């Protein structure tokens, strides 16, 4: 399951599994955000390439309008995924504490 919602101003909180089945819902939500947004990933357990596609599409759209998507609370497994996919060069990533 996946949950995604607004947190504090400028923050979107995502929890659960961002897989191919859940990516359309995540994309629909993120299509509505503007400016510079921090995606709090501290509750994100899992991401597949479908989820990476959602993040990439959102980052491209926000950068085109002067904003960006930051990723915070990223666990070790997700850091590996972002590293192997080169996303660590495309996003500001703050590891989980």
């Amino acid at each position, binding site marked *: 399951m996946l949950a995604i919602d607004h947190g504090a101003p400028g923050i979107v909180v995502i929890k659960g599994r961002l897989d191919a089945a859940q990516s359309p819902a995540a994309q629909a939500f993120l299509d509505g955000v503007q400016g510079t947004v921090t995606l709090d990933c501290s509750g994100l357990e899992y991401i597949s390439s479908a989820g990476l596609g959602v993040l990439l599409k959102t980052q491209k759209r926000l950068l085109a309008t002067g904003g960006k998507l930051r990723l915070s609370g990223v666990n070790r497994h997700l850091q590996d995924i972002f590293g*192997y996919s080169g996303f660590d060069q495309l996003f500001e990533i703050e590891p989980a504490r």
Partner: protein
Amino acid sequence: MTAQRSFGRSFDSLPAIVAFTAEVFARERIDPGLTPVIDLAIEELFTNMVKYGKGSNADVRIEMTGIEGGVEVTLTDYDVDRFDVTATPDVDISLPIEQRRPGGLGLHLIRRLLDSIEYEYEEALRQSRITFRKTQAEPEGAVHTNKGG
């Protein structure tokens, strides 16, 4: 002991596949630390079968066996054309974001995370079989082989 189950070729099968994997890991006492990588590899391979095997209505069979220090998984797809997942090109992750596309990332990722991945195709049966292994040891470099027949 090998566990096996068949799943309908739909993204909606993913929760049931995750549950099956968790069930086998618990029963076979497979290191739960391997779960995210196994879930990822199965999802990427299964969703490829769903996306590119549209001519088939057959379920996809997943077999899972505990091996020393890890797990071996085989996905079998029926009535499909050859699609060698070990032969797809790597993604150029050095490209600037304007030129990045999400396509191909899944296979690119799992080739780096798994110990080995093999592809076999039975021409007469139009059957694809993908077998991969993952153990606790960090892979020094994934082994990709093709046993196409």
